[in-house]
């Protein structure tokens, strides 16, 4: 069962600062544990929102809004995709993360083949998703 774990931004991440050495090392060790346990599917950090932008869609018109964006607590700084037995296992892993300063992780379930079928997705989407899922599993 795949979950996305979202790391919310902070003043430091938005300033493009690296984590302090101790924390950086602990984060590295945590990632290594997840890889060794075979639960890590993906892990990425995002550059500060100043280097990003948003697009709002309306019929026939797109509005471009350049970063940075003020709502730091709602911005993403990074994420993992993990593959575990269930939500409890996802949370058990994430409780071990070496954060201590009021940081927040958000755990979200990822749509998988059975979900697409239940939502009445057309066959081509279910097949496409299954093919991509097989590719991801093969790459693990």
């Amino acid at each position, binding site marked *: 069962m795949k979950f996305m774990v979202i790391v919310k931004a902070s003043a430091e991440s938005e300033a493009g600062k690296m984590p302090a050495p101790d924390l950086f090392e602990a984060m590295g060790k945590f990632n290594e544990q997840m890889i060794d346990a075979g639960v890590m599917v993906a892990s990425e950090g995002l550059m500060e929102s100043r280097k990003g932008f948003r697009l709002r869609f309306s019929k026939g018109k797109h509005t471009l809004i350049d970063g940075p964006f003020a709502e730091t607590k709602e911005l993403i700084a990074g994420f993992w995709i993990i593959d575990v037995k269930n939500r409890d296992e996802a949370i058990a892993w994430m409780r071990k993360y070496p954060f201590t300063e009021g940081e927040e992780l958000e755990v*979200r379930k990822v749509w998988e083949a059975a979900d697409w079928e239940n939502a009445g997705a057309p066959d081509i989407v279910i097949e496409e998703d299954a093919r991509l899922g097989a590719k991801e599993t093969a790459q693990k």
Partner: protein
Amino acid sequence: MRYMIIVLEGDGATAGPPTPEMIAAMGRLNKEMLDAGVLLAMEGLHPGKSATRVTFTGKRRKVTDGPFTEAKEMIGGFWIIEARDKDEVMAWVDKIPFENGEQVEIRRVAEAEEFERNEVTAEALDMEHAFHAEHVKPLKG
């Protein structure tokens, strides 16, 4: 350069699943990205009401279940694509079949090469680089 295209959902509490028509339209865009060899990853997320948050204070962990009614922008899903520059990303983003005030946020994905290597970071960066070398490849349709 890698870019993450994040679909923002306006109302954290009430955003629902996509309609079959939207799923089909997205499927067509995804196929185009796959055929062009630019798609590195994509996922749809279950709505915020089934989300869980973990907050870390010292050694304490607080686990809270959604919905998170104060959240103005929950994430609905994302793509990660490889693109030469902002213009190329924009060309892809323009094709997203949204029409009703939806927003996407585009962010640069950090590359291990751009971090400073020193005694503290080297091991973690090496491991990240090795993981990426094995797992980050264009998806094929």
